[in-house]
């Protein structure tokens, strides 16, 4: 006969002490009495480590975990669970944190082993377009709990207790933000979800929405209840069509099920969520710029105060949080702020999602507890650097962040430690850079980005980044002058201190941090007109060496006919004609071209 249930009984010392052997005997007796002996198998497991709850009995399928099982409970468990199909609720261990579900499935995979998934707990597990899937993993239970058992101020207190800080970059305590907004008197308040994920190299918000849109919605609705708002807005990039589509579907399904709309779940709380699309402006990630964009104007920031919690969208008190922050809220409500605050470091609680990319084996999203070291992320989770190349630096925090060299690999990540090292947490971009990268070129790349995205409102950012870019371009072209480094430093500090919003205040970070940690590369570019990484094309020359067999491949591919030589003889590159495109270097099969 086909097996119907698989029972696992903890066989650790503590459970044995608590009569697990007797329980097994009682189980066997009870099963044969119901004629189930051949449909149910009993297995023993090693210590589960939950000795306080022992003896433990797990029933599969369903992974129902019974705790403090006594011989006297067995008849009831067998009858009601195994015969009638309804688990004995009062004996089930309820310490089941939401994030645990992920590990039951993926915990044994290396890549996930060191991760802890709270924000992304359902991503990859549930069907994001099916609300029933979300409900089956205790979806919207937090909302129900809040509406039935908690006053708005209790919710704010819980978030404060959790110690959650804004995941969008600045790390402002979320609970405080909620409290400020909740305390404002107004006829209308707004809740905004910032999904304008603009940092190149960061895609956690996109994945969170695409993989589990309901978690984000549930967080927003709870936020609305806590501060007394009736309207929520998700401001999302137009460049994320799939995320937008899934959000739309999720909102429709939530409305249908009574989680959105009038009198949610029969309470007197009504709330609606609307989607607004961005249109490709990096600065709109800044909260005041984002508000201007929702209002239908150019997305330019304005000085604060007043903060949006006092005067935000349409002049009303507004609570803005990032997607990842919102996704934490249902977990904080259900598992408790006390539990949440046990994860992480002294100042930064919970987990952070990083978008690991660049020169590393396992690229992708990783969610780790705060306090994990960079080394663990790059080597244990990321699997190290491909092609036996050496680690050179890790760039964190996107274009507003900095580059940290190898000596910072053992830094335990939190908001403070990264800032102290000269970078930032930012939205969580993490780019691994190997020995082949030119740090001056990389700094130039980031300044090009921020320069282009500068909205132009304040002079330090608009003009300052332009001048920095000019100096950097000059250096990479071999026209750098003595004193350029000092000039970059002075300019950088000035822009940081005088800019209006976060974009300008952080724009010089990539330059300042690379000067601090890789000053010799700048000096080499300026004094020796050399780029050892071989990236700055103006400083390179390609020379044919003695490996040349005269196959002619380089001669054929050269777009400017700079290669000369007869067949089967060593070729020569005319340095005056050469445009240093590197195609000859790439095409040569004999390592016969030296890049210097």
């Amino acid at each position: 006969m086909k097996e119907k249930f698989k029972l696992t009984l903890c066989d650790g010392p503590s459970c044995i002490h608590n009569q697990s052997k007797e329980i097994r005997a009682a189980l066997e007796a009870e099963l044969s009495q119901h004629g189930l002996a051949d449909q149910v198998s009993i297995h023993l497991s090693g210590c589960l480590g939950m000795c306080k709850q022992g003896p433990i009995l797990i029933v599969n399928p369903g992974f129902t975990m019974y705790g403090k099982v006594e011989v006297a409970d067995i008849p009831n468990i067998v009858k009601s669970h195994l015969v009638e199909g309804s688990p004995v609720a009062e004996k089930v261990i309820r310490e089941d944190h939401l994030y645990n579900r992920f590990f039951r499935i993926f915990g044994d995979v290396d890549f996930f082993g060191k991760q802890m998934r709270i924000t992304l707990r359902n991503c990859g597990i549930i069907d994001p377009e099916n609300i029933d899937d979300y409900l089956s993993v205790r979806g919207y239970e937090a909302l129900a709990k809040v509406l039935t058992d908690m006053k708005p101020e209790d919710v704010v207190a819980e978030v404060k207790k959790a110690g959650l800080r804004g995941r969008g970059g600045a790390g402002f305590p979320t609970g405080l933000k909620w409290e400020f907004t909740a305390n404002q008197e107004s006829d209308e308040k707004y809740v905004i979800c910032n999904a304008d994920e603009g940092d190149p190299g960061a895609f956690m918000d996109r994945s969170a929405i695409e993989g589990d849109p309901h978690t984000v919605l549930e967080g927003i609705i709870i936020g609305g209840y806590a501060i007394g708002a009736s309207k929520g807005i998700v401001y999302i990039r137009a460049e994320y069509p799939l995320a937008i589509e899934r959000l739309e579907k999720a909102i429709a399904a939530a409305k249908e099920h009574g989680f959105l709309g009038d009198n949610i779940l029969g309470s007197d709380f009504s709330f609606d969520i609307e989607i607004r699309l961005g249109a490709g402006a990096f600065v709109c990630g800044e909260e005041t710029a984002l508000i201007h964009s929702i209002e239908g104007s150019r997305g330019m920031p304005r000085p604060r105060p007043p903060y949006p919690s006092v005067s935000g969208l349409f002049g009303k008190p507004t609570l803005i949080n990032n997607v990842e922050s919102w996704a934490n809220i249902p977990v904080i409500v259900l598992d408790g702020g006390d539990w949440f605050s046990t994860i992480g470091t002294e100042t930064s609680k919970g987990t952070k999602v990083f978008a690991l990319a660049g020169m590393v084996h396992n690229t992708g999203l990783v969610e780790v507890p705060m306090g994990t070291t960079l080394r663990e992320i790059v080597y244990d989770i990321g699997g190290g650097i491909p092609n036996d190349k050496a680690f050179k630096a890790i760039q964190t925090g996107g274009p507003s962040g900095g580059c940290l060299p190898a000596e910072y690999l053992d830094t335990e990540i939190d908001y403070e430690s990264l800032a102290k090292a000269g970078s930032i947490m930012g939205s969580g971009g993490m780019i691994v850079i190997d020995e082949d990268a030119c740090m001056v070129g990389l700094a130039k790349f980031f300044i090009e980005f921020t320069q282009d995205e500068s909205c132009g409102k304040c002079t330090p950012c608009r003009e300052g980044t332009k001048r920095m870019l000019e100096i950097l371009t000059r250096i990479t072209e071999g026209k750098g002058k003595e004193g350029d480094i000092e000039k970059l430093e002075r300019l950088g500090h000035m822009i940081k201190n005088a800019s209006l919003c976060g974009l300008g205040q952080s724009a010089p970070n990539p330059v300042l941090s690379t000067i601090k940690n890789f000053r010799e590369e700048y000096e080499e570019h300026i004094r020796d007109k050399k780029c050892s990484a071989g990236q700055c094309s103006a400083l390179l020359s390609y020379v044919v060496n003695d490996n040349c067999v005269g196959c002619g491949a380089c001669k054929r591919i050269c777009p400017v006919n700079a290669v000369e030589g007869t067949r089967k003889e060593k070729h020569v590159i005319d340095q005056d004609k050469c445009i240093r495109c590197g195609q000859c270097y790439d095409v040569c099969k004999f390592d016969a071209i030296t890049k210097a």
Partner: protein
Amino acid sequence: MTQIAQDKLQELYDFIEDVKQKDYTESYLIAVLHKVQELFGYLPQDVMDDVAERMGIPTAHIWGVATFYHYFNLKPVGKHMVSVCMGTACYVKGADKVLETLKKELGVAVGETTEDKLFTLQEARCLGACGLAPVIMIDDKMYGELDGKGTIDVINQYRKAAK
């Protein structure tokens, strides 16, 4: 005016009427511009004037908004939009080479449309597919881990399909 163009305009007018029923109508300007671009592929000057009149917003403000955001095209674009990701991860993995290849292969600079009106080349901020770097996106489709030859192969697929 062709029937198609008229239908498109009517769809736009209906959209604007909808928006006018909502609070803070002017805040939907960006949504309206998205609609225009969805219908026409870019933001034509005369349609903008229409929007200004119907929404009661000065044309100057509308152009201010339209020019502020990268997403809006002010010139007609080709049939396929080729976006080269210039995000950090792609940059580190050689996006500049992919871009150079495309410029050469298509014979246009960034922001320009090919003579046959088949492709418009543009640079994109991070496309959020860093694991596949370097990537390009043609319309809504992503192509990853590209090198020079791979890029040309992709372009040729579209050329073939157009014939």
